């Protein structure tokens, strides 16, 4: 099976992605095997520790059910604190669970584009997280993918499984060492939400200015399952393109995607989500709040209603804070049956002067009033998100605010 996968990947290694600027993979090398040998929590430099903590990772594992930390291709820390929960490096998981082969690359095609192909051909681990059937892991599990080598590529493959009736809350912080200027991050993430399970995935990106990021995510949600995704990227990054696709395969399945994005000058973000409502009584929601202070954002969303009695809503709101900035909202609704209920709203513009002046009449300076309005705009209260994770999202927004404005 892996041979077939490999040959499919080899055929796709030059295949350009449908969206986003093309990346020359040869420009990014793979760090030498021993480049980060001997790395563990104790040997991390003060600088690295500070950066990882800044991305939302608690290095003391406090209030975390499990932790996974990978620097470049090396596993720095992998720990589990709750029974019924598995957190493993992907290579170990593939060895320990032969059945995983059946799921591996099922939610994301290995030959989707050159990035999926590279992740297969130059596999550099990643994480495997699984909640066993009926286990409610309400305390968040944290994962961090950290890049330390300049001009290198990190190719990881993650699989997350919430077994029947289980609950998982994951927070991932992806970041780069302060000394790193450029790099390529390819992250394949496959999510399997089984019958009646709930999976919350919160991802906070904090890259260096010249980093190129190509996540490729696929989600399969079974009957009465719930998948909740929260994505926050407020720091400069040269180019980010992703378009996760969720398939709602069982009746009553729900997927919600919330993104909070900011594009400073020189930054190009092409993001969104697609949901295929393949069973009746499924529901989907895609909400994005985007801000440009000079960069370009393409905020996509695509809802595909394939069965009657499905409900879906798409919302793209963009705020342009600098004349050089561009926000292109591309909402798509595709209904294939009578009885689908799908809607969208999109709005792109500048801050209403009246709102700024209203707050100034309460004594705020113009800068304070603008910051208050921007913070409010980004303040998406996500239904069903555990308070600890909402706090992390709020913290990321608060920290980015000063540099953003």
């Amino acid at each position, binding site marked *: 099976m892996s041979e077939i996968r490999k040959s499919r990947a080899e055929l796709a290694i030059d295949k350009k992605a449908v969206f986003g600027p093309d990346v020359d993979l040869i420009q990014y090398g793979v760090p030498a095997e021993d480049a980060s040998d001997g790395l563990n929590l104790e040997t991390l430099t003060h600088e690295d520790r500070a950066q990882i903590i800044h991305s939302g990772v608690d290095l003391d594992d406090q209030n975390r059910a499990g932790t996974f930390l990978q620097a470049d291709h090396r596993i720095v820390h992998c720990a589990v604190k709750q029974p019924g929960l598995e957190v493993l490096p992907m290579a170990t998981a593939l060895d320990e669970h032969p059945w995983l082969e059946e799921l591996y690359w099922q939610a994301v095609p290995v030959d989707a584009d050159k990035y999926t192909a590279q992740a297969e051909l130059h596999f550099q681990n990643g994480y495997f997280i699984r909640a066993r059937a009926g286990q409610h892991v309400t305390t968040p599990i944290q994962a961090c993918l950290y890049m330390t080598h300049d001009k290198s590529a990190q190719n990881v493959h993650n699989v997350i499984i919430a077994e029947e009736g289980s609950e998982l809350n994951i927070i991932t912080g992806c970041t780069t060492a302060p000394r790193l200027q450029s790099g390529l991050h390819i992250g394949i993430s496959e999510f399997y939400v089984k019958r009646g399970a709930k999976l919350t995935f919160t991802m906070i990106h904090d890259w260096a200015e010249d980093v190129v990021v190509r996540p490729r995510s696929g989600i399969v949600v079974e009957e009465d399952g719930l998948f909740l995704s929260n994505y926050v990227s407020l720091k400069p990054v040269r180019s980010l393109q992703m378009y996760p696709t969720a398939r709602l395969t069982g009746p009553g399945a729900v997927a919600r995607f919330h993104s909070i994005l900011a594009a400073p000058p020189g930054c190009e973000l092409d993001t969104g989500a697609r949901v295929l409502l393949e069973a009746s009584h499924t529901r989907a929601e895609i909400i994005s709040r985007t801000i440009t202070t000079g960069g370009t954002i393409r905020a996509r969303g695509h809802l595909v209603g394939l069965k009657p009695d499905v409900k879906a809503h798409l919302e793209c709101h963009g705020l342009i804070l600098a004349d050089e900035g561009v926000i292109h909202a591309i909402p798509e609704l595709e209904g294939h049956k009578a009885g689908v209920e799908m809607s969208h709203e999109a709005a792109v513009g500048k801050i*209403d*002067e*009246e*709102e700024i*002046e*209203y*707050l*100034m*009449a*309460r*004594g*705020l*300076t*113009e800068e304070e*009033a603008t910051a*208050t*309005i921007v*913070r*409010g*705009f*980004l*303040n*998406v209260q996500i239904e069903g998100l555990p308070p600890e994770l909402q706090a992390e999202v709020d913290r990321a927004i608060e920290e980015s605010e000063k540099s953003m404005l």
Partner: protein
Amino acid sequence: MLEVNDLWVDVNGKQVLKGVDLNIPSGETHILFGKNGSGKSSLLMTVMGFRRYKIRQGRICFKGEDITRMPIDKRARMGIGLAFQKPPGIRGVKTRDIFNVCNTNEVSCNALAEKFEFSELLERELNVGFSGGEMKKSELLQLLLQDPDFVMLDEPESGVDLENLDILGKAINKLLQKHLWRTRAKSGLVISHLGFILNYIDADAGYVLMDGHIHCRGNPRELFKGIQRHGYRECVECQR
């Protein structure tokens, strides 16, 4: 407290105020009557400093200082407060957070909200989905927290039901220190379209603003009676 001299103002190239003069001494409340579109709100917005209102001529002085070119926030911090007729909704910003911004005297927001039956709205987004009465209440409570020396109210009674008018009347009286007599320092300029507010506050003077000019200064109750009987046009032609 507030002196406006020969004020000429344009909005989007249209003249809305044409030589307005006003003098509101410390401790006094004045009422401004006028038809829709007569320039009443424009006058308040200009005194507050809104940029859309371009001052072509004239001067605004507050507490003896020329504030004609002063930014809005500085005017607010000097002690000018405005309750908007239709405040904008601010998405994602909790009403409580703006109450805290306004709270200059460390008053308990919870206690104040409870007193004015506003507690449930504190956690809601500011002015988003508020009814007319809720908006007015929110505006007045913000001013109570801000505690300005000069209070401007833009049609505080519009869209408010009778039950809430009484509550709002109490809030306005508190704002304008109507319980004090000799030591009252707060002043106010209140726009009233329907005149209901006269049942709740004692005002010292009234004017009619029409076509950008102030006409007919006098006792506010008598003025309002005149307007009710003869309409604004007659009232202006009378030129007392």
